[in-house]
């Protein structure tokens, strides 16, 4: 795998990943930030391919670029009225300082220690091996992860749906049956009306 193609790919993709990560920071609008994020995910998936981890790369594209990307877009759509600008708090300066200190330490550690790297051959087929590892040696974490996912899903639904059954929702939309799906809810522009007060 160490042909000149891989090195070229590595430099290109890491530039893409770091560039789009910076893009999130500097994007003017929220939605541009999400698109830069998804580009960063894609860049990272490419880096995984250069490390000949094909299953992980495809899983990354599927879970992150596909699902989490759409999830974040939905979240932005459901909170349309919050300021869409991508403005920062006063913590920009100190934030940068802390972040650069942390990453500086990591870079120092990475470059100084000599990892006992043995030039290992690449693995053409990783899917089969990951599958056997997951179902034999790491069976318990595999089951725990599935329980965690279900808990997260139920939690998310309860959180969002509970917020929707407040009384004023019901008299507002007349007695039609509840929302068909979040897609419709996302279509609505929501305005803050402080004037309602208690009634």
């Amino acid at each position: 795998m160490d042909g000149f193609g891989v090195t070229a790919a590595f430099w290109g993709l890491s530039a893409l990943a770091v560039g789009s990560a910076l893009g999130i920071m500097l994007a003017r609008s929220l939605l541009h930030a999400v698109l830069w994020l998804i580009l960063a995910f894609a860049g990272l998936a490419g880096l995984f391919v250069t490390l000949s981890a094909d299953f992980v790369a495809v899983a990354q594209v599927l879970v992150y670029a596909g699902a989490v990307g759409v999830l974040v877009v939905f979240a932005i759509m459901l909170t349309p009225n919050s300021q869409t600008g991508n403005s920062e708090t006063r913590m920009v300066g100190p934030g940068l300082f802390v972040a650069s200190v942390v990453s500086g330490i990591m870079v120092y550690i990475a470059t100084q220690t000599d990892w006992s790297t043995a030039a290992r051959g690449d693995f053409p087929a990783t899917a089969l091996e990951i599958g056997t590892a997951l179902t034999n040696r790491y069976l318990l974490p595999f089951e725990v992860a599935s329980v965690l996912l279900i808990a997260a899903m139920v939690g998310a639904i309860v959180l969002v749906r509970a917020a929707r059954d407040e009384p004023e929702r019901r008299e507002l939309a007349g007695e039609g049956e509840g929302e068909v799906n979040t897609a419709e809810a996302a279509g609505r522009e929501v305005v803050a009306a402080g004037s309602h007060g208690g009634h």
Partner: protein
Amino acid sequence: MNVLANWWDLRSLANPVNGLLGWLRDKGWDEIAYIVSGSIGAAAIGLFLGVAMLALIWVERRVIARIQIRRGPNRVGPQGLLQPVADAIKLMQKESLTPRLGDKWVFWLAPLLLFIPTVLTLGVVPFGDGMTVADLNVGVLFIIAVGSVMPLVVFMAGWSSNNKYSLLGAMRTIAMVLSYELPAVISLLSVVVLTGSMQLGEIINFQKDHNTWNVFLLPLPFAIYLIASLAEIGRSPYDIAEAESEIVAGYHTEYSGMKFGLFYAVELANALIIGGLFAVFFFGGWWTYYLDVIIPSWVLFFVKMLLGYWLFVWARGTVPRLRIDQSLKFSWQFLVPMGLLNVVLVAFEVALWYQLDAPGIILAPFAVINWLLTAGLIVGYVRLLKLEHTQTPRRLTLTEDVGIVTHVPAPSAAGYSAAGGSPA
């Protein structure tokens, strides 16, 4: 796979290519061979897509015309063959507008990004014996992963057009594609469990070694994948995203000129690729019962691909459109549970097969069991949910005399107050 057979053997186009690469490597120019093989793959996909797109526009318009007992385009060129070219030129010279308040960058980027999933999926599909651009070990997962990026791009188009209809269209697409991605993944899962590998080449080899097509062994996943893929590319009963009669043209309302042409072309390309995927997963890809010894394998694959594509055009010509909540309800209530049940069934069968390590002939009883269970599952499930006979056609009463025949009560949801007449 007689890959290293003499290079002029055109039964698989891989032979001349490998001949060329072998010759290059003998000369020691490995880098050049590396670049040449990459560019040949890319050129193959690009050429195939370009030619297929133009041909498909003509095929689709003629077939739909025949369904509607009219003739279809026959003015431009012999039998209208140059009509797609005329369309392309017309679209190119049209002014492509950008909505002022819309998001210019995202608006301009969306049609380009829409092509990426299409082209990447083609990279994994085996067009013939050994003719795969990159036969990935994780082929099936790759197709699903690339497909899952599509709703995002559609949302970019819908959101940046700053138009109510496109926003509605984008929202509908995301809801539709997300809820139909699950049944599609589940049905492909049962195919992978049966064939034991995610590599598309291996799936075809499995069907070749046991000289059977997967459609005989897995009828239910075939049906579920058919419906789910129809919904994912948004065609015929599911073209809810760009429902002309309801939301003008959905997410590509604001697009004009060649940008609209790209949207239209991607829809055709998606239909063709789904036809190809059908051929690979359920109809044995290029392998058709030893016919590929005589006829070149890639010709057979194209025929199957076009048959799959023709199925979609036929559906487009006849079936009306579903409403968004009906289609979502159908997916969650019907397709997902059936798909899960089927995966369990197939897993059980494969486990039994490995336990007994019986010869391949055991697939025959499996096929019979699967077909019976499919029928039983569908009928039982419909009866369980008491869905049958909800939609029976009605007959009218024909009377001679004048007067009120039946009283129709006012529906609660609509605006009538109980007393009839204009509401409060």
